[in-house]
């Protein structure tokens, strides 16, 4: 009880929380309504009341290592009941962006991804990269021949892969390093404050917890416990399943190309194509719904990090679908151009994931799996 805590506030950190959308943080008077209002907060060291005071006190290290900020699904029930309008939901959203930035290296890229003024540079990078590598290798052909529009004749699949595959591994590497540090920080904190006493890490336990968490994520179980913003689940589900569908399609395409030497474009009658179309439409509608929900929700803060991610998802879907539609419509020039733009967004997605809000995919899954594994009540 009588432990002494010498608070060494990181004032810069507090200001950053404010900038990232937690501007009402200081209105909090610690009544703890939020911890009870939250439908998914545990009984043992519930959130977000403790995060609110830690943020007010500028306890940066404590918060970045705090897995609980990832358990939150930002449903807004806490902000609705908050008697002070301190918006704990928005504060946790801001903390998540800051945690992503802190764990993702190199720091410069993390700064750029979260800085509105650097957006043109971030989009120019893939464009320049494609042109330079394409011209050096000769895999970019500005005068593709033939009557049929085949995107690979313009932008060779080899070129796609020699750029995308290393980018993918770059992102995976950034994630691996960030995740390693995050999990060890989180574990140390949970042991220290009694959220868990479990120390024996056994792969089987972790794997079982992971499977349970993944199933729960796919079913959007946590989202559905929310009362205030339950409709968000639909949009999120469409975007998530859209991404999963497109990932499956891309993998099949990759295997078929390299193993069976069969090139696209596939016929519209091909079931893989069906999946691709459904997933693409789902991505576009889902992300458009997200924009609509955010614009309609005046009492919740939407920051650049939110718009960056939704914008990226929407552009990815829109350029992909338009590329296909213009190809089928025989508009060769437009279609090749759109394909180029589409690949820019694909690259941006791969490369910037670990630094953007989309990194929640990794950190939230990790925190949920950890919590499931630690059997916290």
């Amino acid at each position, binding site marked *: 009880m009588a432990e002494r805590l010498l608070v060494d506030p990181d004032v810069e950190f507090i200001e950053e929380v404010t900038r990232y959308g937690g501007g009402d943080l200081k209105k909090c*008077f*610690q*009544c*703890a*309504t*939020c*911890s*009870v*209002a939250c439908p998914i*907060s*545990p*009984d*043992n*060291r*519930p959130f977000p*009341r*403790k995060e609110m005071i830690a943020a007010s006190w500028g306890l940066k290290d404590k918060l970045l290592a705090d897995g609980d900020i990832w358990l939150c699904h930002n449903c807004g029930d806490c902000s609705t*009941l908050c*008697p*002070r*309008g301190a918006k704990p939901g928005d504060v946790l959203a801001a903390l998540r962006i800051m945690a992503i930035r802190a764990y993702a290296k190199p720091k410069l890229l993390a700064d750029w991804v979260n800085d509105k003024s650097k957006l043109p540079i971030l989009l120019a990078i893939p464009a320049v990269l494609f042109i330079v590598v394409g011209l050096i290798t000769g895999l970019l052909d500005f005068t593709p021949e033939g009557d049929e529009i085949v995107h690979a004749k313009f932008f060779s699949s080899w070129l796609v892969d020699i750029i995308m595959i290393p980018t993918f591994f770059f992102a995976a590497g950034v994630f691996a390093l960030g995740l390693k540090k995050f999990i060890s920080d989180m574990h140390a904190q949970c042991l220290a*404050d009694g959220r868990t006493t479990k120390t024996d890490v056994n792969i089987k336990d972790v794997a079982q917890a992971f499977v349970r968490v993944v199933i729960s994520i796919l079913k959007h179980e946590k989202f559905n416990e929310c009362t205030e913003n339950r409709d968000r689940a639909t949009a999120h589900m469409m975007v998530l399943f859209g991404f999963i569908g497109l990932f499956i399609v891309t993998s099949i395409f990759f295997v078929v190309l390299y193993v069976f030497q069969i090139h696209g474009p596939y016929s519209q009658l091909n079931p893989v194509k069906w999946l691709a179309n459904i997933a693409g439409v789902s991505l576009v509608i889902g992300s458009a719904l997200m924009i609509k929900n955010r614009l309609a929700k005046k009492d919740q803060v939407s920051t650049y990090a939110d718009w960056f991610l939704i914008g990226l998802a929407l552009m990815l879907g829109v350029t992909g679908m338009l590329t296909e539609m213009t190809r089928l419509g025989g508009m060769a020039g437009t279609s090749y151009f759109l394909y180029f733009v589409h690949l820019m967004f694909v690259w941006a997605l791969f490369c910037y994931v670990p630094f953007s809000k989309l990194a929640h995919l990794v950190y939230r899954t990790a925190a949920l799996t950890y919590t499931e594994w630690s059997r916290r009540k």
Partner: protein
Amino acid sequence: MTADKSAPVSGSILVVGGGISGLTTALEAAEVGYEVVLVEKKPYLGGRVAQLNQYFPKLCPPSCGLEINFRRIKDNPRIKVLTLAEVEKVEGAAGDYEATIRINPRYVNEKCTCCGACAAACQTEVVNEFNFGMNRTKGAYLPHPMAFPARYVISPQIVGTEDGQRCQEACVYGAVELDMQPRTVNLKVGAVVWATGWEPYDATKIDNLGFGRYPNIITNMMMERLAAPSGPTGGKILRPSDDKAPASVAFVQCAGSRDENHLPYCSYICCMASLKQATYIRAQYPDAKIYIFYIDLRTPGYRYEKFYKKVKEDKNIFFIKGKVAEVSEAADQGVTVTAENAVTGEKIHQTVDMVVLATGMQPTAVNAPLPADLKVSPDGFLINDFDKGGMFAAGCANKPLDVVSTNQNSTGMALKAIQTLVKR
């Protein structure tokens, strides 16, 4: 005084509201020689204080204080009391106001001796507002045993019915007058003091605290009536659903207060009220467990702080820092309240027999805007404009106050009203 700035001065003061604030203002002004008209919309004087079981921190019943005040009014020919009266309009300027007052019929005249024959004859029962609807009373009733003026009231519900006739026939003094009509009086007054008081915040608006959904969740003002000897249970604290003696009670502090979704301000009295009510329960049930859930306990001043310290020594009273944000039904008609203990960082699910919501006060004027040119805060409290003068807000019409501060404040407003009359 060098110049005569005042309008033609009318010598009397209109005091609107006959609660502890209005009584104080009226008496303080009348006892130094000013004419006062005291207007009360209910059929009795005493207001919220009349509904209390005990005052804090002395734990004495308010009836003795009210009795003294009523005696002072009776002895003072300068105070004219109008009950069942509502101010319809106040116009004019400082020193020269014209007030229109509507007096609703009581259907009982001054011949009433409080013998109770009318109530005995009456068969209809009406909701007892004085006890917050926890019981019913006859259609002919005395609002409460200490009611002043001590005169029965006949509910408009039974006027024109056979029951009304029965009451009239039962009265041997000829006090029942069923054909009484509302009437309007116009008064010329020099100053007006608005002592319109407060209402308990409507707890049904606090969705997550379950009032109205579960019978064993009551408000602090209902607790006053349960504990009062003149209350619906004769002073036994029993839970509403089954009249069981509660073995455990939870107090939910700041129920609607300090909450921008409800009342953004602190209602000032609820902490002391709950501490006081904890002593009611402990006096009746020596083994009962009491849980007080709070954000901060506000017991300002030496005497209140001392009271808090004394209550804190009780081993059966538990203080939990954390606001209750969820209630649910438990076995045997109990209620489970949920809060995070912000000191230990653990969520608590406490099941109790009964829950008391420490609801705050809302100015009466918020639900019934006053018919005069007054400054009102966004929360409905009257703002005193001393530069303009002439009309003043006293007591809880102005801000949330305890009884002691109300008396001080109302005395001050009596002086302000007097100054309006004599400023020449």
